């Protein structure tokens, strides 16, 4: 039995929807890397914290994740900037191994804290204002997934606009291109670094908030997403926001459609094969600087 066109189309679009979430997570990761060459292993935990922020606002004050989304973004921005000032600032000139261990340690710390404070239970937000299904020309989609994808496009767009069209964004790009030169031009490099961490964490936090309406929430949830985020960043090109966006969509499609056609047991293998291909044929990624 060959799958009908309808199912193929549906699967393709489901891939795009989840891909947009991957893109948003990867945008934050690539931003931090692009500006200061540090790989943030705790990025999945920002996503997890975004989910928990949404969950608690919902559980304690019955506030919908969609309403608290700006607040979640702001909180994660603050957290990202604070982590930069408290921790990352001290290891900027340290050997790469120390940097890896530092962000890896942060990952363990946040997971442990979440488990300690909120128990390892699986939580979910079951009565969000975004629920139900949408039928479009014979295809059906979950409303939460559609809203999450739309949200991811908007936020990625805002980040892109900020980098391309504002003075502050230009300063950030300049810092990414050459720290010393940027400092000589009077750009406060420390501030830029903190900004990158803030925006990076906020992107992951927003992705978490968008996911919280349909994905189970638990302390380890970041682990499910971080591997894919790394592949996405590499595919898009380290440091490239636009690259991460397109790469996220490609990874989503390869995973969902490829998994559907060739067998779901290969879906992660397909994504990693794509990663290998990129590393071999175009190591700088789709839109990365060589």
């Amino acid at each position, binding site marked *: *039995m060959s*799958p*009908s066109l309808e*199912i193929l189309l*549906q*699967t393709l679009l*489901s*891939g795009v929807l*989840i891909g947009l979430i*991957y893109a948003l997570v990867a945008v934050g990761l690539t931003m931090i890397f692009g500006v200061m060459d540090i790989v943030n292993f705790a990025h999945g935990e920002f996503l997890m914290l975004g989910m928990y922020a949404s969950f608690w606002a919902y559980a304690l004050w019955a506030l919908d994740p969609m309403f608290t989304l700006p607040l979640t973004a702001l909180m994660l921005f603050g957290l990202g900037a604070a982590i930069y000032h408290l921790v990352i600032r001290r290891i900027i000139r340290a050997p790469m191994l120390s940097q890896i261990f530092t962000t890896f340690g942060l990952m363990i710390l946040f997971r*442990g804290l979440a*488990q300690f404070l909120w*128990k*390892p*239970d*699986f*939580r*979910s937000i*079951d009565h969000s204002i975004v629920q139900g*299904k949408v039928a479009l020309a014979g295809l*059906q*989609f*979950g409303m939460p*997934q559609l809203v999450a994808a739309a949200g991811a496009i908007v936020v990625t767009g805002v980040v892109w606009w900020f980098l391309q069209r504002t003075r502050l964004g230009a300063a950030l790009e300049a810092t990414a291109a050459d720290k010393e030169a940027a400092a000589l031009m009077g750009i406060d490099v420390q501030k830029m670094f903190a900004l990158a961490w803030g925006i990076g964490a906020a992107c992951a936090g927003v992705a978490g908030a968008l996911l919280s309406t*349909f*994905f*189970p929430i*638990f*302390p*380890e949830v970041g*682990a*499910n*997403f971080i591997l*894919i985020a790394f592949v996405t960043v590499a595919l898009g090109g380290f440091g490239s926001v636009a690259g991460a966006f397109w790469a996220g969509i490609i990874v989503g499609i390869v*995973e*969902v*459609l*490829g*998994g*559907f056609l060739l*067998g*779901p*047991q290969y*879906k*992660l293998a397909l994504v990693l094969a794509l990663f290998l291909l990129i590393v071999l044929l175009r190591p700088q990624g789709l839109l990365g600087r060589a």
Partner: protein
Amino acid sequence: MKRLWQWLTLGLVLSLALARPSLAQEEIRIGAIYPLTGAAASTGLELKNALELAADLINTGTKGLNLPLATTGGLPNLKGARIKLIFGDHQGNPQTGATEAERLISQEKVVALIGSYFSNVTNTASQVAERSGIPFLNPESSSATLTQRGFKWFFRTTPHDDLFVANFFEFLKDVEKKKNVSVKRIALFNENTLFGTETTKIEEKLAAELKYPIVEKVIYPAKSTQLTSEVQRIKAANPDLIMQSSYLGDAILSVKTYKELGLSPDALLANDAGFNDSEFLKTLGKDGEYILSREVWALDLASKNPLIKQVNDLYLERYKTNFNGNSARSFTGLFTLAEAINRAGATKPEAIQKALSETNIPGDKLIMPWKGIKFDATGQNTLGTGIIVQVQDGKYVTVWPFDMASKDIVWPMPKWDQRK
């Protein structure tokens, strides 16, 4: 000179750290290896609670309860010695499980090990026990291969997957007869660790023998971020029945994806694990209704066995949650081990091993729906059986075997858009 001082200090610190107070005589140290952190930490915590309740009941006496060791406290044949549990955290990782087994045996000097929920961790941890000559009692891992390794120190109280899957097909035959329906298209949906892949093999073998056509077989990577491709593939095959093996996170995600994509088979027959976790229904609420799952235990079995209610009340009072199939099995596992140690009258590993192999606990002294506990030469309990439960009105109720059922089975389950 300075270097010498450093070495001396180091030596002193080390010898202080390694020196242990001599063991109190009335303490029987049992190592318990469970996933206390990591993805399965919530299950691990429940199992830890169950073991601690069992240990306390043994240590303080189980008066009024028809459990083995109905004494006034401790193990009578060992002068009232008390059980002391020492926990190891395997984090869901087989290597960590083996390391923890090493640590518990060599440093904590445990006389026996119990664990480890995950079949793949039980596999590695029990290898260490086998090598060291320490009895390993496994209350809840169901991979059939575990008792096919020819181990001498490994004992398993729970029935294994071969038997559970055989139960699935007995159940199908019974339902077909009773409800006058026929199951013609089966889809297998299993995760890709040892648990899921072993189940797939047995399901395929039995389905072929009993002439049930399998129209789709999906093996998926555990801990996925999405299960859309999997569910679409199953939907395309249009099955009457899905047989599924998943741990908690994936189980939740899959049901949400069924609903999102409108996949409604006549029945979803789950293979325990995530589907029977206390968090499963809490998280899914109404969307978990009508799911069938194999179980070794259900609270409504209490109507046939009052002991179940008594023990569950104690657990509920302490931990604010009911027993489930996993915690009830861990609880039973520790009682089995303690009963054997008591009968051995000694803490020598050889004596415990011998006593375990001679275990014969009747079914009415258990909180399980088993005929009893009696190990064969491979260390497998031969008297265990499974049941099938269905989620009805937010509770797991026994629906099969029909003579133990407290409610009638709902088959087929209503389509998603026909539910309230």
